[in-house]
């Protein structure tokens, strides 16, 4: 699981995407290193979702190259992206709310003991134990893994999805607006899990429109605007206020920033 710190996991070289005559993305480049968080910032319509979809295998890019650990790739389906270790955690679609935590954790890749065809017997003891352990590593202590996921808070659900992606061998974790539907407190919880994932050597791509969420956890920042990159900065090359300026207009975020500062001094 541990990746060597700083290794280049994913390299994006000048990719573009056109929908007919519309330019959705033009000439975007960035790199994702193991154990770092790359934040992709942009307002609505900036091209964030096209960017994710190319990396997640939903769309194919038209120009440029995507290299995974040096190998050029082009994904035909989400499954292919998963197979090379790129896991995407979408905001809403991650969980089956009425199912228990451990079943959600293992869904689609249940550890089985024996059995034929669809009737493979799940090794429930092992499944529960690993689910509890893995969630513990992400900082959620679950004593009763039978609890339905629906009874967890939004942030905790996100983190179950993150823990799941990490456990199933993801090297690069793409988080699509994980904080946008959450309250301040819950956002703090998710940001903690992002830091936790980084510590474990994953390359994290954190998509958000909120620089105040990106700033405390990010190592690199890429700002998108109308399909083009406004720059790709390391943390030391830029300040929060510059970042906010780049995003155009961030005065109303002052209060949020204040609250985050207390939750997030890391």
């Amino acid at each position, binding site marked *: 699981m541990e990746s060597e710190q700083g290794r280049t996991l994913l390299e994006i070289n000048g990719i573009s995407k056109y929908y007919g005559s519309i330019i959705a993305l033009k000439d975007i480049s960035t790199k994702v290193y193991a154990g770092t968080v790359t934040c992709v910032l942009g307002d609505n319509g900036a091209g964030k979702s096209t960017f994710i979809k190319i990396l997640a295998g939903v769309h194919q890019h038209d120009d440029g190259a995507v290299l995974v650990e040096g190998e050029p790739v082009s994904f035909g389906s989400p499954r292919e992206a998963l197979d090379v270790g790129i896991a995407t955690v979408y905001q809403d679609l991650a969980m089956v709310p009425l*199912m228990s935590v451990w079943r959600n954790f293992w869904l689609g890749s249940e550890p089985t003991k024996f059995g034929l065809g669809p009737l493979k017997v799940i090794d429930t003891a092992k499944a529960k134990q690993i689910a509890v352990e893995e969630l513990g590593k992400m900082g959620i202590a679950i004593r009763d893994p039978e609890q339905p996921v629906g009874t967890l808070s939004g942030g905790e659900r996100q983190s179950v999805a993150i823990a799941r992606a990490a456990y199933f061998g993801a090297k690069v974790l793409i988080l699509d607006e994980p904080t946008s539907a959450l309250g301040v407190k819950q956002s703090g919880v998710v940001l903690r899990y992002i830091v936790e994932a980084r510590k474990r050597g994953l390359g994290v791509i954190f998509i958000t429109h909120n620089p105040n969420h990106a700033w405390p956890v990010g190592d690199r920042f890429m700002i998108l605007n109308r399909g083009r990159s406004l720059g790709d900065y390391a943390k030391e090359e830029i300040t929060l206020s510059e970042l906010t300026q780049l995003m155009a207009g961030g005065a109303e975020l002052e209060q949020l920033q204040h609250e985050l500062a207390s939750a997030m001094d890391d």
Partner: protein
Amino acid sequence: MSEAVTEPAEENAESMSTSKAGAAVASAAAAKTDDRLAHRGPFQRLLGQPEIGAVIGAVTVWAFFWAVTQKFGTVAGAQPVLDVAATLGIMSIAVAMLMIGGEFDLSSGAMTGTTGLLVIYLTLEVGELGGAGISYWWAVPLSLAFALALGWWNGFLVERTQLPSFIITLATFFALQGMKLGFAKLLVDNIQVGPLVQAKLDADGLPITEQVEACNPITGETEMVTQEVLRSDYSFFQGIFASEWSRNCHTLASRDFWYSSSILIGLSLMVLAAFVLNFRRRSGGSGGPGLVVFLGGLAAAVFGYWQLHNTDGIGANATWGGLLALGIAVGLYGFATWRFERNNDPGPLRFTSDVIKPGVLGVVAIVLGVVAARLLNSNVGTRLITLDNDSIQTVVAILTVVPAALLIAGALLRRASKGKTPVARLLLGSSLGIVVLAILAMLVTEQGLRATLFVGLISLGLIALSVAAFRAGFTSATARSAVLLLIAGLVTWLAYMVQVESTSVKFRAELFTVMLVGALVVAVWAVISRQFSIRQEFDAGSEQLGRSFGLIGVLLLFIGVVVRLLYVNENELAREIAPAKFSVRILWFIGFAALCTWILARTSFGSWTFAVGGNQAAARQVGVPAARTKTQLFMLVAGAAWLVGMLLAFRLNSLQASTGDGLEFEYIIAAVVGGNLLTGGYGSALGAAIGALIMAMARQGIPFALWNTDWRFLFLGVILLLAAIGNRFIKDRADNLRSE
């Protein structure tokens, strides 16, 4: 109450945890303080099970008909109920699985008839109209293959067209219905198809007969009978699908011993399980003296039971029954001393108004119930209102009274639900239930009204008192203990009231015993829950032990009932009790329920079923083969329909062309009564099985009660509504208990 106490604390804790910096450090703190992950007690988790509402409903419906009829609670009642429940249950389980997977199959009813008819067509002699004349060895598997192909077709179409399964399977239903009738007219020129070819024929084409010794299912005596020699293929399938167990042919002299001891041990184990799951294991010190007390109590109980079993007479019954009860109580206390940690701070004996209000309400309701029972005549069958042409006023009255009552109750319910507590809603809801049932009962007999009022008020009282006990627990263990003892006392008093009042042995002996046992358990619980401390944390060891005890207990109860149902003893034979036959289809039903429960709980396919019904997009995203899972579920339903088709064909030998048409809604209803969600993603196979049992009981109970069957659907409507509301209520409560 509790909201006020706990919520601010949680708020504080959580803001503390979030203000603590550092992700790694925070994890431990978050774990302890996150309200979502609070300890859920065993009862709470039990209430969270989808089938729990159905279990309560089944017990209630059974008890209701047991009380209002002469024979429903006997073997004579069990036979027709189980017969109907078996076929209905097999289908409702399969339909429930499909519903959990988020789809419906409206062709399931027609499919049961289709598979049965197919076997008949395939095996009829070639000479006869339309017969294919092939052996059952081929016909039965071919019919299964046909059913599975139909199921696959349903699934395939649903997946490919993305149309609602409602439409697709409705089309299949109509097509099957048309084909069944069409082929019946075309091939045999009748709407009845059959009979199956059964007998071996001699050279002239006549059935060969033989003389055999056989047990007469009515008298239980062995006699010589002449019967046809069956073809080996027919007799094989007849054996596995339609053989019967004639009760009168199976005598077991010691039946009552086996029956009562497995019930007694089963119940004790279940009480022990409740203890183990609820109390904290002692951390240190020797439990030696406790163990001695436990064993002593156990010995006394066994001796009391042995004497009770071997002696007759009321005086002896009281003595030895008392010893048995005392032995169990002392034994349980000893067990607690041996295993559990003492509670060093049971708290003061003080009651808040929260406790006093429901407490007083409970006592008043129980007293009212007894008064109502004494005032009303207990003569069986006195009709209060006769509906004939002259009583138009009555009809008008009912037409105005019922909606008015519903309106008033609805308004009250709405007002009450704006209040804070779900408990108030529960109390109001049950009062509403009593009013509606009392009105319905008035339509039938005075005895019905009496029973309804008595049972309703007593239940209301007991619920109110339980609420009081629950709330008293927030003040102190001592207060709760006091309320529980009050309940035990009231139940004992009620038991003796019932014994004095009732003319029926059923109530004087059976109900009396049940109530005394209940009172004993509550009393023991009251004492032990004050003396020992209740567990608030997860303890894998205790969970495991408690669960095993509970499971063995339930199994023993089940075995006890089975022994009672299957065997007859000399006493019964001498009294010429009605003969009962149990079909092998009940075994198929139990087996299928167990299989599907296991599939849902233990296999990947089970997980995927929940997932595709709960959130198909998410399931697909993590690599669940959603389309394949759904198609397999459709095929499961078709397979179940085939099984039921075989059960019907080999039982009845000839089938109506309309067999099974329109029953699909009954399957769905049974699944919903059993706690399965119409929208998918939640439910259980066991629940559907119990739902089928409820439907069968409701249906067979009405003829047993000799009610006018015109009202049957009214009754079914009430049951369905109560089941749905009850399920919803229990589920909500289980989910929200944390915030109470």
